[in-house]
């Protein structure tokens, strides 16, 4: 089976498709590709997009979601902190949907605490990482761009204390963006436009404006890279 179909199977499993069904789906798609004589990429498009469409078809927005299901989103500066907070409140992440939202649920009878970790992965390189973390009890629960998320029941480290007696109600909010995210969304357009205006000669040279924008884009990229590096250093 091709690397494409292996990756698709892994993504379907992460999306909550039972192993047997994911296996059958991928086998069926392998037959389809063999009959068309094309490649999976040509026939189905990028693997992440295709998996997202299959999962969306399997669990539509207006579908029969369980009462305890909850979808929410956070930016990369706030995701780990937010995951830790809600994991501690008994929310287990099942997958990341095609809009990049975390899809999770909480056991209404016996809620348990969960812990999460986020890892940077190269395209197609997630399986080796998952295999390395599996002995420690980490299980993949979703991928967004170059980030793969893993979950582990807190019971693995603290035993019965991981059970929650009276979890707080489900949060009313579903968007958790950090101040740093809002700052960046404000700064980046300014970083692009202001140098363009400043470097444009008074007689309105268009080339000068675009040169300025290019300088601004480089500045913005350098700032982001520095911020990323600084964040990584701080997190050790």
């Amino acid at each position: 089976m091709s690397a494409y179909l292996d990756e698709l199977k892994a993504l379907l499993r992460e999306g909550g498709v039972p192993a047997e069904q994911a296996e059958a789906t991928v086998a069926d798609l392998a037959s389809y590709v063999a009959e068309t004589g094309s490649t999976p990429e040509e026939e189905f498009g990028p693997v992440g997009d295709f998996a997202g469409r299959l999962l969306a078809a399997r669990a539509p927005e207006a579908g029969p979601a369980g009462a305890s299901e909850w979808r929410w989103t956070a930016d990369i500066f706030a995701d780990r902190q937010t995951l830790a907070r809600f994991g501690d409140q008994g929310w287990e992440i099942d997958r990341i949907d095609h809009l990049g939202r975390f899809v999770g649920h909480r056991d209404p009878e016996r809620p348990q605490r969960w812990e999460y970790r986020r890892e940077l992965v190269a395209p197609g390189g997630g399986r080796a990482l998952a295999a390395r973390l599996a002995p420690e009890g980490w299980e993949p629960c979703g991928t967004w761009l170059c980030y793969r998320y893993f979950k582990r029941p807190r019971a693995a480290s603290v035993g019965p204390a991981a059970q929650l007696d009276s979890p707080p109600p489900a949060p009313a909010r579903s968007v958790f963006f950090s101040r740093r995210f809002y700052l960046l969304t404000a700064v980046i357009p300014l970083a692009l436009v202001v140098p363009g205006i400043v470097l444009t000669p008074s007689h309105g040279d268009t080339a000068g404006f675009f040169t300025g924008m290019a300088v601004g884009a480089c500045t913005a990229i350098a700032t982001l890279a520095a911020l990323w590096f600084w964040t990584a250093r701080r997190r050790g």
Partner: protein
Amino acid sequence: MATDRRASWLKGVLDLLVLATLTEGENYGYEIAKMLAGSGLGQIRGGTLYPVLNRLEEAGLVSAEFRVTERGPGRRYYRLTEQGRQTLAEQGSLWLAFDQSVRTVLASGGLK
């Protein structure tokens, strides 16, 4: 432009077309795509067809059964359910009525 327009038309009716290919009995993905292409609808990529099949299955309009084949890794066979047959009849009639209205307006504009 013409390709975009056709893609948009197909998007609105592909689920009905897939249901229609199953009225004579069960079938599998590649054969369904071939039947649609043979009707002049052009090549339907697996990336378009399979999400539609999944949605129809999820909605209970088709049932699917995976069978291992002698050659190859196996296939999922789709069969129209009673609910699917009813939906095809209802929604298909609406589409035909829509098609008739479009024809009437285009004919009034001089198209034959």
